[in-house]
């Protein structure tokens, strides 16, 4: 008990030593636990997130959609725990490839971050950080009704999805191939006949921790079942589709036949009617014709007859007139002749009335009279004849005209009918033609359908698991990266902590040698004595471990998590105290510290107590090797000679100081180096390699440069548009799929915007027989110039590309090629993008309608800048810890150095050394060691920096491994500042050293 009390008193008396011991243990434990724990915390956090949101184990997509039968079959699988179907729809909105998902209930659930779930079919959820609540999203594609009921959605909430934890959402089947947005809408908004995808969760998989072998085992039996089921369902679906198509063709054909049957008859009737009408019209015409002919004949006959009558009458008249002429009567008309005759008759009658009836004269005149009367009769007859003739003529003419009129009017009527009929006929012909066309179309469709059935491909099920989700795998990679860093840094810290402890304890025990001697001579057992020191150490270690673990399990994992998962959209880290690791750390610390103490104390017990009570005979000084090189040694000032001699006196301390200082320097340099590298790649990538302002995404792809667009750009002083085909493709390494941008240029001279060089900075140019790929692709696939690589689009279509050169590149992966080579490797090129410098004309360009979107280089820079800013955290963490370590180490070593030489320093004080000289006497060694340590540290730092950057590199980034001169200066400055701080602390201790101590006997 007394011994423990003694130990406690030691703590009180030398609180500095105790605290520095605590700090050293705390630092070691914190870093060890923290860095070690981070990756497992990360994985656990994510596993919990996956479990909460029921992240699918498998996702099935079919080339022909999935049916309720498929769903049923999947639900029946014995290893399927949960099965849920869903719909998706991909479209381009404002130039962004956007994917719509139905809101699921059981698998791949989203976590609401803000707002609320959609309450009606015009509301949607978006991934956090894309749209704002209240934004309206309108689908531009006019074919949307084939997929969705609505085309306008209001954002009512933002979500996080375990399917999309990486800010790179993956590839899309629309736009430039890069998925930009994900939108969730109620499932019943979809208007698709078949399910687009089905998700499955395997039995027990939620209990297993993601990313572990256990998880892989748990999902494997379902995987096997799925592999077995896929061909069956594929065949079923194939046959179903084929049967349905065949039935449809049959129905169509039947329909055509009926149609033909029914309509042909109708058309025939109509045609017959038309023909009859025509016949009637024709008959009418004929009748009229006949009547006209008859009329004409009559006219000719009657005219002739009348003419004959007239001629006869004229002949009679003429003979009468001739007789009359003999009688002396010449007149112009018949009436005159009659009058003349009548007058002669009257005169003869008058003559006769005076004459005897029997007289010759009478007889004569009577005879004449009779003749005259006969003449008159004849003349009257003729006159009547003419009158009759005239009447007959008039009658005929009337008859004729009337008949003709009638006939003509009949003909007009017929003409009207004919015109009408003609119209009807034309109509009929038109209709008939249409009908024929319709039938032919129908037949063509059937033929097409038949051809399609003949060519019908079997549906293919694509089976995706979590490993196909780039976020899921990238996350593991980040966690693994931390582990590899975890392998280096903590060991370093632990090693330093261990050495420092050993050093402190040995010194303490040396100082207390006499005390140990007294205790032993008093008969206290050596175990009790050892116990008192072990108690002291364990107390310090325990406090150190508690502080260290509490920092290690909270602060460090959070910082690392935030830095490494900056590109992820995931819940914040949950820290778990990993009990086995905890126990290991505690055991290791306690055990090593105890062993160190037991060793340091125990070695004293081989001496008799009496020896312990006597002072240790001083270690003999020794000349150093340098003294043998006389011409150098001669030139060194006396105080430096002393320093050099002293340096080599305590080799253990040299080594520990060097380890401490060089380690801290290395860590500092690494911290600064990491920052340099990252900011440097930004400069190089966007100021030396890619010098364009923006990529203008064309509203419509063109096959050749568009004159209108060129004119528009020229009018707005946007020069040298480089027409480009841009597409996101992917390539596969042995264990993952990595995206790359494929760019094919219309012009082979791209030096306005891209400066491709090989690793020796020789400029590269595009060729017609191969593509230029960037360094990282070549590294990942382990290929070189002349080899080929396989690229895939989102439909898993494969393209083989030959490598013509490998270009230096730091951010993202690119495949560059000429349009000629694109035509060769991919088929006909279309340009969907223009690369150019637009300064600040973005609005004008977007307003032109030629472009759907502008991708600014500036945006990429600022996004990367964010990552760099967050990397500063890790740099500060490293700098902070190394600074703390540096100060602790320097302080510890210096104080031990002083306590070992207390007497010597007191003596020097008595001899009249002033404060500065005494400080220098002690500190000269530290300065030399610091300088050497810094130099060694810089070399270690270069290596460490290289290693850390190699580990930190992702599939999309290459770091420049050079360190700026400024960083060396910062490192030096910080080390110098630490040295000064420690010197100040040391000076305080030195000043306190009492000269009277020099008079005491050696302890």
């Amino acid at each position, binding site marked *: 008990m007394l011994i423990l009390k003694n130990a406690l008193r030691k703590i009180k008396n030398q609180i500095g030593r105790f605290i520095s011991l605590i700090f050293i243990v705390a630092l070691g434990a914190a870093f060890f636990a923290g860095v070690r724990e981070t990756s497992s915390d990360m994985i656990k956090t994510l596993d919990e997130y996956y479990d909460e949101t029921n992240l699918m184990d498998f996702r099935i997509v079919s080339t022909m959609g999935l049916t309720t039968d498929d769903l049923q079959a999947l639900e029946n699988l014995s290893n399927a725990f949960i099965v849920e179907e869903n719909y998706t729809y991909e479209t381009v909105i404002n130039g962004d490839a956007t994917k719509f998902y139905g809101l699921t209930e059981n698998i791949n659930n989203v976590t609401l971050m803000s707002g609320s779930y959609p309450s009606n079919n015009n509301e949607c959820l978006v991934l956090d950080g894309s749209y704002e609540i209240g934004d309206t999203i309108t689908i531009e594609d006019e074919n949307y009704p084939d997929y969705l009921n609505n085309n306008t959605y209001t954002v009512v909430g933002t979500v996080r999805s375990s399917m999309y934890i990486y800010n790179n959402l993956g590839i899309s089947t629309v736009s430039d191939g890069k998925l930009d947005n994900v939108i969730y809408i109620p499932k019943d908004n979809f208007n698709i006949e078949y399910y687009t995808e089905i998700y499955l969760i395997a039995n027990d998989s939620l209990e297993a921790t993601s990313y572990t072998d256990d998880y892989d085992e748990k999902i494997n039996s379902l995987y096997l079942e799925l592999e077995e089921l896929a061909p069956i369902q594929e065949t079923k679906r194939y046959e179903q589709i084929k049967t349905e198509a065949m039935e449809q063709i049959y129905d169509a054909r039947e329909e055509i036949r009926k149609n033909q049957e029914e309509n042909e008859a109708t058309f025939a009737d109509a045609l017959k009617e038309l023909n009859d009408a025509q016949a009637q019209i024709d008959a009418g015409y004929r009748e009229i014709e006949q009547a006209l002919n008859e009329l004409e004949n009559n006219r000719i006959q009657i005219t002739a007859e009348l003419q004959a009558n007239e001629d006869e009458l004229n002949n009679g008249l003429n003979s009468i007139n001739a007789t009359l002429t003999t009688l002396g009567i010449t007149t112009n008309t018949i009436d005159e002749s009659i009058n003349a005759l009548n007058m002669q008759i009257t005169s003869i009658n008058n003559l006769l009335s005076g004459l005897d009836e029997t007289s010759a004269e009478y007889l004569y005149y009577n005879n004449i009279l009779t003749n005259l009367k006969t003449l008159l009769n004849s003349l009257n007859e003729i006159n009547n004849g003419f009158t009759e003739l005239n009447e007959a003529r008039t009658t005929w003419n009337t008859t004729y005209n009337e008949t003709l009129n009638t006939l003509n009017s009949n003909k007009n009527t017929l003409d009207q009918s004919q015109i009408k009929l003609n119209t009807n006929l034309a109509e009929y012909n038109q209709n008939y033609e249409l009908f024929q066309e319709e039938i032919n179309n129908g037949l063509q469709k059937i033929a097409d359908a038949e051809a399609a059935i003949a060519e019908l491909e079997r549906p293919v099920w694509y089976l995706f698991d979590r490993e196909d989700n780039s976020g899921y795998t990238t996350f593991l990679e980040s966690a693994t990266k931390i582990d590899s860093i975890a392998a280096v840094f903590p060991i370093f810290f632990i090693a330093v902590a261990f050495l420092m402890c050993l050093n402190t304890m040995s010194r303490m025990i040396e100082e207390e040698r006499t005390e140990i001697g007294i205790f032993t001579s008093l008969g206290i057992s050596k175990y009790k004595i050892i116990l008192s020191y072990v108690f002291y150490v364990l107390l310090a270690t325990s406090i150190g471990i508690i502080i260290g673990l509490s920092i290690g399990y909270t602060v460090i994992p959070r910082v690392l998590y935030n830095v490494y998962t900056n590109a992820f959209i995931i819940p914040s880290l949950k820290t778990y105290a990993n009990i086995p690791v905890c126990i290991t750390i505690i055991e290791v610390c306690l055990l090593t510290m105890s062993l160190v103490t037991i060793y340091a104390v125990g070695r004293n017990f081989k001496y008799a107590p009496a020896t312990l009570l006597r002072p240790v*005979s*001083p*270690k*003999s*000084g*020794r000349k150093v090797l340098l003294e043998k090189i006389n011409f150098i040694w001669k030139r060194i000032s*006396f*105080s430096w*000679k*002393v320093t050099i*001699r*002293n340096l080599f*006196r305590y080799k253990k301390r040299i080594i520990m100081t060097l380890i401490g200082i060089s380690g801290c320097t290395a860590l500092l340099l690494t911290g600064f180096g990491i920052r340099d590298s990252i900011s440097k790649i930004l400069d190089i990538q966007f100021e030396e390699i890619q010098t364009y302002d923006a990529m203008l995404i064309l509203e419509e792809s063109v096959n050749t440069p568009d004159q209108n667009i060129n004119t528009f750009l020229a009018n707005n002083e946007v020069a040298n548009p480089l027409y480009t085909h841009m597409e996101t493709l992917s390539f596969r390494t042995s264990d993952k799929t990595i995206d790359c941008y494929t760019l094919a240029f219309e012009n082979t001279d791209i030096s306005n915007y891209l400066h491709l060089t090989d690793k020796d900075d020789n400029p590269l140019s595009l060729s017609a027989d191969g593509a230029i790929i960037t360094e990282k692709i070549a590294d990942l696939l382990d290929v070189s110039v002349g080899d080929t690589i396989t690229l895939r689009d989102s439909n898993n279509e494969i393209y083989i590309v030959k490598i013509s050169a490998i270009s230096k590149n730091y951010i993202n992966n690119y495949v560059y090629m000429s349009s000629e080579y694109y035509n060769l490797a991919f088929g006909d090129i279309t340009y969907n993008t223009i690369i150019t410098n637009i300064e600040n004309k973005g609005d004008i360009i977007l307003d032109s309608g030629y472009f759907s979107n502008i991708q600014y280089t500036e945006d990429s820079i600022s996004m990367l800048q964010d990552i760099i800013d967050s990397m500063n955290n890790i740099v500060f963490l490293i700098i902070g810890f190394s600074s703390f370590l540096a100060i602790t180490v320097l302080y510890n070593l210096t104080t031990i150095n002083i306590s070992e030489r207390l*007497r*010597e320093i007191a*003596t*020097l*004080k*008595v*001899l*009249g*050394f*002033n*404060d500065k*000289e005494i400080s220098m006497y002690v500190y000269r060694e530290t300065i030399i060691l610091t300088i050497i340590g810094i130099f060694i540290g810089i070399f270690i730092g270069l290596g460490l920096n290289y290693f850390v950057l190699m580990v930190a590199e992702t599939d999309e980034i290459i770091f420049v491994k050079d360190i700026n001169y400024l960083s060396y200066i910062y490192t030096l400055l910080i080390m110098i500042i630490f040295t000064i701080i420690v010197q100040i602390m040391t000076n305080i201790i030195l000043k306190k050293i009492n*000269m*009277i101590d*020099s*008079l*005491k*006997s*050696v302890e």
Partner: protein
Amino acid sequence: MAFIEVKNLSKIYQMGEVKIKAIENVSFTIEKGELVVILGPSGAGKTTILNILGGMDSPTHGTIIVDGTDISKFNRKELTRYRRYDIGFVFQFYNLVGNLTALENVSLANQICKNPRDSKEVLESVGLKDRMEHFPAQLSGGEQQRVSIARALAKNPKILLCDEPTGALDSKTGKKIIKLLQDTCHQTNTTTIIITHNAIIAGIADKVIKVKNGTIEAIEKNKNPLPVEEIDW
């Protein structure tokens, strides 16, 4: 005026509530070139007197004039300068720097004073001509004390202060050291003050200052100091 004039010197240590008077009203004078022995049992206050004379401590009261300068009110810096230029100190336990050779230990002191003596000569004069390149651990106690004396002398001090110089030595070697000190004092006319509890040594001194319970018990002048050879240990 005497070379060293100590007047009414007191040193009181404040230990919490308790005041401990280490020395009280101590007065004496020492002439230049004198060999003085301050004699007293342990706890008498002789070490306090030594500390104050040596510039390692300041008195609470009283003055102490060395070669015309009052050092009792010296500050830290002035005391350092005083130790540096005026005092040569010989320790009971030699206090050599273990990592330096005999010669280097002497040179160490040499580095800091204005008018040093040649290290080798001094070492020769203390009889260590052949041991100069040895490290302290390789030297006997007497030899180490000689180095210590040489180190003090090399500074060419006004006062040579010796704290129990024979305390850690056997009588034979102790005698040799005392002889060395006496010879040096006489030969170089260096004021030498030896502090000891060993009354026998008092015989060789020019003046003996006896201290008891923090006060001067007696100051005795030896008209004829004994040569070392004649004193009996």
